[in-house]
């Protein structure tokens, strides 16, 4: 019966527990994937938006949201995918950007809407860095190498 005492704001903080399976340091709230939550008694509808059209993590994220909300006692959980307005890295929280850097991924940077040399290295903060490939281990990142510390790193693209 726990759901009776839960409001929308609390639900957002519960969903902080769910991480992006591909960047496990970021929650789906940090990423701005959860667009809205609508409560009606023991029913809840969560609106989520994919980062990229082909983001393979969306099914897993939807499943985890279902599990989390069922645990809280909701009888009916509806997950609705919306694609308009399209997701943008502008929706990523500052906290999210800080966590990304600490994890070794350069955060989206407005000066590099188009990935180019010079994105700040998340490991040594050098800006003497080189774009290796606009595409990297997941759709949302580009691959870089730092000319100072020589480490390769990912840059979370502005999108």
């Amino acid at each position, binding site marked *: 019966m726990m759901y009776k005492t839960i409001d929308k704001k609390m639900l957002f903080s519960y969903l902080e527990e769910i991480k992006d399976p591909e960047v496990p340091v970021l929650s789906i709230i940090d990423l701005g994937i959860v667009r809205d939550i609508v409560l009606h008694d023991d029913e809840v509808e969560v609106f989520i938006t*994919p980062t*990229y*059209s*082909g*983001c*393979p993590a969306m099914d897993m994220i939807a499943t985890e949201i279902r599990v989390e909300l069922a645990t809280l006692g909701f009888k009916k959980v509806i997950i609705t995918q919306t*694609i*308009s*307005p*399209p*997701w943008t890295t502008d929706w990523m929280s500052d906290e999210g950007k800080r966590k990304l850097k600490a994890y070794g991924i350069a955060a989206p940077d407005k000066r590099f809407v*188009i990935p180019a040399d010079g994105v700040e290295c998340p490991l040594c903060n050098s800006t003497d860095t080189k774009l*290796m*490939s*606009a*595409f*990297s*281990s997941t*759709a949302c990142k580009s*691959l870089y190498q730092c000319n100072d510390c020589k480490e390769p790193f990912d840059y979370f693209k502005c*999108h």
Partner: protein
Amino acid sequence: MDNSLINYTLHLADTTLILSQRNSEWCGHGPILEQDIAITNISLDLLGQSRNFYQYAAQLINFSKHSEAKVSPSGGDLEGASEDSLAYLRTEREFKNLLLVELQNGDWGQTVLRQFFFSQFQYLLFEQLQQSKDEQLAAIAAKAIKETTYHVRWSSEWVIRLGDGTDESHQRMLHAIDELWRYTGELFEAAEYETAMGIDLAAIKQKWTEKVIAVFDEATLPVPENSFMQLGGKKGVHTEQLGYILTELQYMQRTYPNSNW
């Protein structure tokens, strides 16, 4: 009821699905690791776009089934259509993809040249489509154009790198142009359902031609004279290649109906 919207959505879905399938054949075979990852990322973007189009087409078909819309000549009963049934259970003649995307990959040069021709076209198309009166097509296009921007940049860079590269790479690009050019005319030859949707292919053709000339100039590649253009894909008349792709793509669902991951 007029089926133009359904047919047009299926055309967009089929085209992105088949190109995704083709590009994914490079998985594990790319010239170097970074480029293997790039082409498979592009493949994934296209697959995501095609899922959005198929889901929408399924919704339209299910909504219109009471009005006896005849969408599937062979599949007959498309009642309860889904993104999976549309991708896995339609036959070759029902696919409306562009011929360009079903052609064999050839070498790396041919694959990147095809991506270049297609992505330049898709970008201009999505620019128009995001203004469409149909809200869902507009939303899918507005989402996807961000991804296409990357595909355009990546494929343009490769055309320049190979065209203006070594003698060998230049020769291979000439060969690729020879193989692919006659399939580019279809991009701009409107099918009935495109005309009905109000897509201005003439405007796209003009801009596309300008882009191709600019990149080919930088790549020191000749722009072919317009000659014979092969048509048919939009109407379901395909090269022999599509049958092989569908055989592989649809094998599991046809052998083990309703199987799930």
